[in-house]
């Protein structure tokens, strides 16, 4: 009685039955026939289980049980209809369970065994994560895939809310295949055997506080555990200066849970596990911000040798030293990349990039990253339109006339590719201040000259000069120093 048939691959089915007779039986004669079989197929079995083909519509089954000496004592006939056959996929086989301790991530790989089934069927994989000595279920996820009549290796990642070192993590998986054309009941497969990633609390010298010296974002919820030797007791665990309630993970591991972590000091927040007065263990947690996208990215040159990019960094990350926010400048046209030396304590952000021969246009991407995140800002710039000359130097005045003078000044830089516009400010005590603009071809580390006429005789003047690009004004240089000159008497 209770004849049940299950198929795992839609072609063969495994039938099982019960024998109610109290008498000890030796073996069973099993016969089956279907509409497209010429004659019944029979065979003997000692088990109450056989594997026979799945019928197109139904099968007639005859089961005869005999005693040890071979005398038949019970015969029963069954008709198995297609709708009576249930379908459950074979138990999935986990190929690998790989931990990435740095990210507390488990990577699970398994085969979908798709070659057994027709193409295009929907498959659902239920994955269970268990933890601690008591193997408590901490997560159950349903993963979906489509079968392709080939054996495909599926991969899935799960990030734990606590470091994998803290305690052992276990994974098991089962599968459900939606065989739409199958009329019988459909069921989940059995759970796969459990795969384990052992925690440090199972290792002889596994003691420590985890995660070790890690960086997290402000606002994160963080689980920090203390793994100790068997028999040791944790007196208390503190985060910064605050004692936290402990969560027991195993006989050698307890954890604390810090919610909504706030920014740490420059040297990080200490998490101390006090085992006894003289035994301290600990870790340092750095809590900071991902970098803000740089604002007001400006790139200009003051000498056509170096391009200087500046930007506003946004909120400080709160991370320093080797965890600080790092900047790099990538120029897409030339493919050149420059890393920027930035002093995190200094609010001004500057990065230099060499002016490249025969390149006027630059497509910059300022890459910004720290252990918590990364971002970037881009800028396309025509260098000739971003000239911000250095301050004119060595301003000298010459002239032996009562109404005109010649000014000479030097600008550090190579401006041969552009014209310069220079502005001369003419002041004299009682006279109205005047501005005189003069444009001239740019030169290479040159001295520039301009003549001023229509001055007043025997008058003391103060002159200063500043320059910019003539064709595409961008920014004036700073003013030069003031030079005084008195015109000759008339």
């Amino acid at each position, binding site marked *: 009685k209770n004849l049940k048939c299950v198929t795992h691959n839609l072609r063969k089915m495994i039938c099982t039955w019960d024998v109610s007779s109290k008498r000890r039986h030796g073996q069973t004669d099993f016969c089956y026939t279907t509409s497209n079989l010429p004659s019944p197929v029979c065979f003997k079995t000692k088990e109450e289980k056989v594997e026979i083909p799945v019928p197109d519509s139904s099968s007639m089954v005859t089961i005869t049980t005999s005693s040890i000496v071979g005398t038949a004592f019970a015969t029963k006939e069954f008709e198995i209809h297609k709708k009576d056959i249930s379908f459950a996929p074979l138990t999935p086989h986990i190929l690998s369970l790989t931990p990435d301790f740095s990210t507390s991530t488990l990577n699970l790989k398994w085969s979908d065994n798709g070659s057994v089934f027709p193409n295009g069927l929907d498959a659902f994989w239920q994955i269970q994560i268990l933890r601690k000595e008591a193997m408590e279920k901490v997560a159950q996820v349903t993963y979906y895939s489509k079968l392709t009549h080939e054996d495909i290796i599926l991969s899935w990642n799960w990030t734990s809310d606590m470091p994998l070192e803290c305690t052992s993590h276990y994974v098991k998986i089962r599968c459900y295949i939606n065989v739409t054309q199958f009329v019988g009941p459909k069921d989940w497969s059995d759970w796969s055997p459990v795969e384990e990633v052992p925690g440090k609390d199972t290792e002889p010298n596994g003691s420590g506080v985890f995660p*070790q*010296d890690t960086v997290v974002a402000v606002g994160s919820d963080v689980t920090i555990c203390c793994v100790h030797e068997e028999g040791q007791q944790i007196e208390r665990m503190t985060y910064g200066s605050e004692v936290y309630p402990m969560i027991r993970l195993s006989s050698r591991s307890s954890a604390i849970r810090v919610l909504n972590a706030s920014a740490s000091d420059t*040297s990080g927040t200490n998490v101390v596990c006090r085992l006894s007065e003289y035994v*301290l263990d600990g870790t340092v947690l750095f809590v900071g911000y991902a970098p803000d996208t740089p604002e007001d990215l400006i790139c200009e040159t003051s000498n056509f040798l170096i391009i200087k990019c500046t930007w506003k960094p946004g909120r400080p990350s709160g991370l320093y*030293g080797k965890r600080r926010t790092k900047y790099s400048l990538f120029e897409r046209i030339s493919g050149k990349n420059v890393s920027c030396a930035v002093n995190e304590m*200094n609010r001004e952000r500057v990065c230099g990039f060499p002016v490249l021969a025969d390149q006027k246009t630059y497509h910059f991407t300022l890459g910004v990253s720290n252990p918590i995140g990364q971002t970037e800002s881009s800028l396309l710039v025509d260098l000739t339109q971003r000239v911000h000359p250095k301050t004119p130097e060595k301003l000298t005045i010459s002239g032996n006339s009562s109404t005109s003078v010649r000014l000479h000044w030097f600008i550090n830089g190579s401006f041969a590719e552009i014209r310069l516009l220079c502005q001369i400010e003419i002041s004299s005590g009682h006279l109205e201040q005047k501005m005189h603009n003069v444009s001239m071809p740019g030169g290479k580390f040159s001295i520039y000259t301009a003549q001023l006429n229509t001055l007043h005789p025997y008058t003391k003047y103060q002159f200063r000069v500043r320059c910019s690009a003539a064709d595409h004004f961008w920014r004036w240089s700073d003013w030069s120093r003031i030079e005084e000159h008195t015109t000759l008497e008339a």
Partner: protein
Amino acid sequence: MAAADSPSDALRRRDLCSRGIRLAGKMRSDVVDLLDTYVERQGLDASASVAAVEGVPAAATEHWDEQTGTQRLLENLAAYRAFRTLLAQMLEDQQEQLGEADAALGQALAAVLLQVSAFAYHLEELLRLESLGPPSEEAAGPTSLSDLSLFERKLRGLGVLRELAQWAVRSARDLRQLTKPSPGTSLAPSPAESP
């Protein structure tokens, strides 16, 4: 002391000892200040107990009374050479971990390192007067910090500074001991001796 001093050697030794005592006193107060800064900036519990730091000779010694002058100088020199290496290591690690974020702590560490180096040189000078000369430095470097977690490094730094503070006290006592009259090398203590 090994052989009877010439008057100039004795004068030179007394001068070196009294200057050494003042340097040890200054060093001690700076180390105590540095300790407070270090504990506060590293977020440590001032009462935390720290295991002995490998590579640092303990200041406390049972046979202090019986030590000869040379033994005192040699032990002091070994200690301050060790501290010089350890403090340099701490300074480098502090730079790597914090960059410019904690310049105050970095400068305080550098200042004490300078004093430790000066004191080591001072001891070498005293040993030269022994015509024994200072021993050559041992090649064995300290534990590599990369084997230690950040928290272990913080505790280790605490241990180094605490031990250095102890040594500064002991050094002053040792140098005072050297200036005390002993058979054959009587050196009257000079008034400017106590730190």
